[in-house]
């Protein structure tokens, strides 16, 4: 079956009528317009995924469930698919629920996160909320030529170093400006970066805490 026939068939199953225009629009949106008369069997994995999402959008749903949408896609394919998903949300206001284990991929895409383990709810929140709750003692990597021996701040111990960088430990995010001011008093600062704040690190913290 061709992509177009495929969409027509599913439109009929959804009970939709007068779908020609909608189908053409979707094929256009998902970059399949040129391949619309090709057999779906000859499609690449990425094209099949895009067709699958186009199919799920036929009836203009308000909420979309996606299970591992980028599974089996190459980096380009994943990126363009994630961009489609983002546009779908921003332009058409579709709520999208993505089930995935690729945390890095969705970290910047999703507005909020729910962690589920063996069907059991663990935690939920936006990245900021999760950070506030789980980040705890913060490691800050500061790009500075300051010598480690001079970086003797009692509140902010140095826990790691590499040429041009020092890693300090602070109690929480609120202390970072004080740390930076202290370093600045002695040497220039080129950049500062909180370590371990990505979704994956938070995930392990959340899991670790639940296991205890």
């Amino acid at each position: 079956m061709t992509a177009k026939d495929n969409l027509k068939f599913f439109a009929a199953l959804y009970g939709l009528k007068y779908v020609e225009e909608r189908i053409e629009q979707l094929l256009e949106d998902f970059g399949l317009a040129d391949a619309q008369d090709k057999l779906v069997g000859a499609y690449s994995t990425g094209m099949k995924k895009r067709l699958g999402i186009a199919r799920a959008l036929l009836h203009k749903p308000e909420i979309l469930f996606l299970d591992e949408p980028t599974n089996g896609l190459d980096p380009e394919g994943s990126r363009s698919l994630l961009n489609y998903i983002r546009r779908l949300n921003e332009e058409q206001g579709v709520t999208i629920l993505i089930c995935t284990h690729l945390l890095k991929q969705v970290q910047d895409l999703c507005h909020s996160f729910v962690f589920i383990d063996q069907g059991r709810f663990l935690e939920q929140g936006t990245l900021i909320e999760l950070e506030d709750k789980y980040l705890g003692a913060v490691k800050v990597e500061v790009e500075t030529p300051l010598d480690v021996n001079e970086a003797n701040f009692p509140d902010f111990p140095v826990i790691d170093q590499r040429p041009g960088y020092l890693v300090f430990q602070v109690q929480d995010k609120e202390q970072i400006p004080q740390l930076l001011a202290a370093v600045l008093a002695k040497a220039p600062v080129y950049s500062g970066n909180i370590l371990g704040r990505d979704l994956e690190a938070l995930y392990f913290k959340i899991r670790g805490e639940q296991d205890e």
Partner: protein
Amino acid sequence: MNKQAIWAVAKKDMLAIKESIQIWLPILILPIVFCLVLPAGLILAIKYFGNAGNVDQIISLLEQLPPGSIRDSILQWDEQNLQILYFFLVYLFAPFFLMIPVMISSVVAASSFVGEKERKTLESLLYTPIDIASLFWGKLLSAFIPAIGLTLISALGYMLVVNILGYDLFGQFIFPQANWLVLIFWVVPTVSLFAIFLNVYVSARVKGFQEAYQLGGLVILPIIALFVSQMAGIMFFSSLVLVALGFIMLVVDLFLVYKTTKDFDRNRLFMSQVK
């Protein structure tokens, strides 16, 4: 039940048949051989060579026929050759027209759900809002329409060939006959439905083509054998017997509909594809 969805499923599956030569070629060859080549050959053989080979057994069979309308209809012809020809054309060939729809519907129906499973398309089908009954009816139609359509066409072709080629010999058109009309329009649909229901049921339960064809064939073959052998006999009886047979099949069909719709829900169908 959702008419639009039923028709969409049926149409999609019939298009798939059209696109697969492995399916439609045997489906076409069988009716052509049985309905056109065989009767034409038989009529022409008798017309030009005067006999159809060793016919002693058939003659003795004809002589043993019980008195009744069938005996009369055969013995209305003076020549022995014509009696034999008439016996073949009107009675012995009839079961073929039951075999054709049963075979077509078995082949198509056996792959109905299994085809979706093998192509991994059943899952996305089950995600749509189509109700399971509509899905089943779509699958049934996709086998029923080609089976009945081809049977009608072959029966029409057969009657035309026999009428035209046989006119010289019999001096009249021998078709249509009441028995045949009952057979084609009443027994063929009900028996086809029976084969389809069974095969769709099996197809929905098993995981792969092999199982479907084997199981479907296992169920169908003895039934075909029974029917073909019995039909030869039943055609000796009246149209009334055929009407009754159709009714029996209809009751069995209704039971199978009930059983199928009761046995399958979305979850069961989904699990049947998990390997």
